């Protein structure tokens, strides 16, 4: 593995550990949502780091591929093989692109639920929200 890949994995580990600590230990409910966002960022960084190839071509920027591909002959197959041998692995990119958008939408749902909890119990502290729930019972 490349050194930059190892550094990316270590940073992702720090992100996930920090997010888990915020979700479990923090009392403020918005801090818990921030921790959930950090966990998602760490997982995205792991997936992107898997597809990294040092000095590789970017699969979406295809100047090299189109310059050597000649239509109406079979030479563009060879060009495609060369391109596929040099490009980085692009399947995790598509997965992470979906994961970012889904993460943003679930984050908005979490924020809306915390706003609803604040309007019901008039506090952001999770401990006080639990106390309010016990008083209702």
């Amino acid at each position: 593995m490349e050194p930059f890949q190892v550094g990316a994995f270590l940073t992702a580990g720090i992100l996930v550990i920090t997010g888990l600590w915020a979700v479990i230990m923090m009392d403020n409910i918005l801090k818990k949502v921030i921790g959930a966002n950090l966990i998602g960022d760490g997982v995205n960084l792991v997936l992107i780091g898997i597809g990294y190839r040092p000095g590789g071509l970017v699969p979406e920027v295809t100047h090299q591929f189109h310059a050597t591909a000649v239509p109406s002959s079979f030479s563009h197959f060879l060009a495609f093989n060369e391109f596929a041998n040099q490009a980085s692995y692009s399947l995790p990119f598509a997965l992470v692109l979906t994961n970012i958008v889904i993460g943003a939408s679930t984050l908005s749902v979490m924020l809306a639920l915390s706003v609803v909890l604040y309007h019901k119990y008039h506090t952001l502290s999770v401990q006080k929200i639990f106390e309010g729930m016990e008083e209702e019972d």
Partner: protein
Amino acid sequence: MFDYILLFVVALSAVLAVIQENLYKSIIILGFESFSLAAIFHFLLATDVAATQAILGAALIPGLFIVALYKTTQGRDE
């Protein structure tokens, strides 16, 4: 060298966003962390993911957080 500095910045700002007391400062640091993460995605050869992460992580998510924080505490510290 700059990419390793960006990795350090992402880890440091994630820790700072969690341990910060003021929630407005915490949200701003979270946006900074997301934008640095987009730059790391660019160095990891994922340019489309970097563009999406830069837009969503640096603009949409802090905006949603600030709207939610304003609707809960009305700008007061709590």
